[in-house]
């Protein structure tokens, strides 16, 4: 049987989800293997070196760089307080002295008699990494962090903004075709993850922000409107560091596109659960997609065999979704994968799949299909 490998987005009822929770630099791991974790629990801590200030002592004292060492009242490694005197000229007969005061609380890192400036460093910045999701410490990464594992339902989106977020999930629409409109949101949704259907408008998203909603999961959003939220035109899809109260996860793409049935049904099944989401997206080599992790209690784990992601690829009868116009968003089953190149309307010669969409056999370039990975 013919096959084509087209990775798709995951929509899984049960998966062993693993997350690397690492510090940006080495530090202390505060948990042990086997520890049960809540999303907010700290798993590792460290101190980032403080910011650096450079002070042009020679200029401020009006002396040559070579004379700076003599004028310094402190030496490399000394800790100084903001406003304390760190350098002073001898003056004239002990009068008319000029001095330099420390602009920060910090450490003298280096003194240069070439440039006449000193490098000072702010106090270290503490950094903590939390568990992100409910789970168990599977492995310790020495001095760096832990690997958290959870039995969970797992859904990938196509694009998101805003970083990690968490909260109780509430489905506020009655079906996947329904737009998430402003009237469906209220004060009770504060701190929650809200799931809509096909689309969220800019005005509704703004309302979600103002209500302090932790996250929104929906089919589509207008690319055009991202600029107003981000403050810049999104040129490349690398997101996650935006400082947004409400993370946004799109499951389908830009525009008004009804949410995939399996995605919606799975989210609906877990209405009311405490979930973790991450809007971070990176579309480059080593792609990162936004995600929704729904940890499962032991009693909730389905009996069916655990899904294992493989490189199964698309074959006959695979369930696929079209990811480009003119059939964008349509789903169907693959009827056949003819091996020979075929000419499209655009005259592009491509490998195709024949897909059954609404009882019609339609020819689609394989590159424009994604497999819907389901368990």
């Amino acid at each position, binding site marked *: 049987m013919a096959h084509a490998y087209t990775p798709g987005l995951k929509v899984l009822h049960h998966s062993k989800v693993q997350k690397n929770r690492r510090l940006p630099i080495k530090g202390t791991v505060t948990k042990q293997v086997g520890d049960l974790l809540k999303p907010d629990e700290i798993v590792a801590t460290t101190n980032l*070196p403080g*910011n*650096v*200030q*450079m002070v042009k002592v020679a200029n401020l004292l009006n002396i040559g*760089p070579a004379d700076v060492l003599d004028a310094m009242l402190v030496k490399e490694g000394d800790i100084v307080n903001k406003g304390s005197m760190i350098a002073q000229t001898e003056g004239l007969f002990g009068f008319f002295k000029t001095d330099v005061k420390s602009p920060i609380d910090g450490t003298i*890192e*280096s003194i*240069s008699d*070439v*440039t*006449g*400036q000193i*490098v000072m*460093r702010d106090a270290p910045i503490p950094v903590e990494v939390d568990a992100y999701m409910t789970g168990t410490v599977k492995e310790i990464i020495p001095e760096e962090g832990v690997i958290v594992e959870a039995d969970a339902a797992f859904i990938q989106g*196509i*694009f998101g903004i805003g970083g990690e977020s968490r909260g109780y999930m509430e489905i506020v629409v009655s079906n996947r075709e329904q737009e998430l409109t402003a009237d469906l949101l209220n004060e009770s949704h504060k701190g929650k993850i809200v799931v809509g259907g096909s689309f969220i408008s800019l005005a509704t998203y703004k309302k979600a922000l103002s209500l302090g909603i932790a996250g929104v999961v929906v089919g589509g959003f*207008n*690319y*055009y409107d991202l600029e107003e939220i981000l403050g810049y*035109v*999104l*040129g*490349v*899809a690398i997101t996650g560091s935006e400082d947004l109260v409400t993370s946004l996860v799109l499951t389908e*793409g*830009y*525009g008004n596109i009804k949410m995939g049935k399996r995605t919606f049904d799975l989210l609906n099944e877990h209405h009311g659960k405490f979930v973790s989401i991450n809007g971070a*997206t990176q*579309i*480059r*080599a*080593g792609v990162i997609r936004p995600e929704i992790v729904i940890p499962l209690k032991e009693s909730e784990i389905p009996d069916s065999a655990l899904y294992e992601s493989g490189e199964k690829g698309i074959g006959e009868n695979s369930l696929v979704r079209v*990811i*480009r*116009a*003119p059939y*964008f968003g349509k789903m169907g089953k693959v009827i056949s994968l003819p091996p020979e190149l075929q000419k*499209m*309307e*655009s*005259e*592009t*010669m*491509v490998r195709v799949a024949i897909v059954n969409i609404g009882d019609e056999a339609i020819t*689609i*370039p394989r*590159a*424009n299909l*994604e497999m819907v990975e389901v368990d």
Partner: protein
Amino acid sequence: MELKSILATDCGSTTTKAILIQKIDGEYRLTYRGEAPTTVEAPFEDVTRGVLNAVMEIEELAGRKILDGDHIVSPMNGDEGVDIYISTSSAGGGLQMMVAGVVKSMSGESAERAALGAGSIVMDVMASNDGRLAHEKIKRIRDLRPDMILLSGGIDGGTISHVVELAEILHAANPKPRLGQNYKLPVIYAGNNKAQDQIRDTLGDMVDLDITENIRPVLERENLEPSRDKIHDLFMEHVMQQAPGYKKLMEWTDAPIMPTPGAVGSLIEMIAEKENITVVGVDIGGATTDIFSVFEGKFNRTVSANLGMSYSICNVLAEAGLENVLRWVPFDINQKELTNRIGNKMIRPTTVPQSLEELFIEQAIAREALRLSFIQHKEFATSLKGIQKERTISDAFDQSSSGNSLVNMMDLDLLVGSGGVLSHAPRRAQSTRMLIDAFMPEGITQLAVDSIFMMPQLGVLANIEKEDLAEEARIAALEVFHNDCLVRLGTCITPVGKSKNGITVLKADLIMPDGSTIHHDLKKDELFCIEVPYEPIKAKLTPGKKMDIGAGKGETIETTIYGGVVGIILDGRDRPITIPTDSEERLGALKNWSDAVNEYPVHREVNN
């Protein structure tokens, strides 16, 4: 040494491409090509796996043995193996550098030129006078995590404090390399030779410091070659060593592995020198667009890091503006709909245009990506470029702002395009139109595309330095470049000057190879195509009174020009090209220009 067969690979971020070159009847030809996914990332984490897979595809197609297990058989033994194996690489995002200089427009710019010429992506140019405060520079260095830093500044024997200050900033930032935690970041110092000791003292053991000749020994002379060579050496010694499997790959190759754009650049440089022509080459990819040029014997390269056709397609829209993209789209489309479609291409970058409308949109964006990249290139390719160049003091101060770009479109002989949207356009006329509309050649310019993007492999072939192989390898690279790499599209002839609607801007008299003649009076704003293959054609070209075709206003040129798969294109449009603002007129003009070169099949409305 005679080379009977050459195997060359280019390990790209996503695909590893292999080609086999063989000497057939005394001439080097490309015989087979194979490709396989690059295997730098998990689960394989060994680049040689992808190389072997691509070579295996060639083995199957050629029906000959090249591999013995996991080894390339070399030299050739009977019908087995190849004489030499070479490779380029841009896997893992290529070589990413940060450069620093004291004055941004002087040593900063020279350092940038050296880094770009060596084939790297320049992530940032830091300078004493770039307007950023020290702590901002430090944060930037920490955030960027480059593969390598090139530090320059000061003329030999000049003041040392500024360049040492830059070193102090570097020291305070304590930069870490992007790949691998267990090696020190390579830093090349190519500044004031009198500051070398202080630089050593300042940077100390924190980085892997390498000192080379000053990039700007005196104000009016630039000396890029030593820095360029050092970058290549360190790329091999440090950066590539960190990438999975490269140690093994380096043992296999008969010449050092080059960064892909560095190899393309050196090939273009060689072609221009050998044939004494001016060249502009472009490679438009998913994330970036590289432009190479040789004018007045001087080579320049620029990388427009976020102008590409998939990963950064939305950035093209952002930088060009919706209006500029829309003006090339030959049908009416709602603006929101258009931006959503482009956004969806960004988040699903591997999709292909199935409908004609999607193709229209992609090619409209390509025109703008190319146009913007070329503007950036023209601004950067100023008169100081070159390995070494004598300049007067007064030139030294206005090198980037005065607009004395080396790029002169009237002098351009050959424009070569490559990258998916140009090389794989369904019709060659589409590539031709995209090149003309974006680069707006003037006078007489030959157009070509790289058929399968084999310029990287040919570039590294042309750069083999082993004495017994060098000459033969260069011959092979040139022969394959002309015979198999270039698809000659044709020649574009554009008179330039002020003209009124309806008047004749050019009279063209052509004598075809079969002796027949063609005469055409080209009107303002008209595009006219004469279908004729790549053969010499005698041409007498007489521009209108106020128009110039290369010899001056109203001056006739008699010369030999060449056709191609598209033919001779007479372009009567303004420079820059004027597109009507009225929607109906605009659609009419676009249709006329398309029809002139038979660019698209008949368009029917597609329902979404």
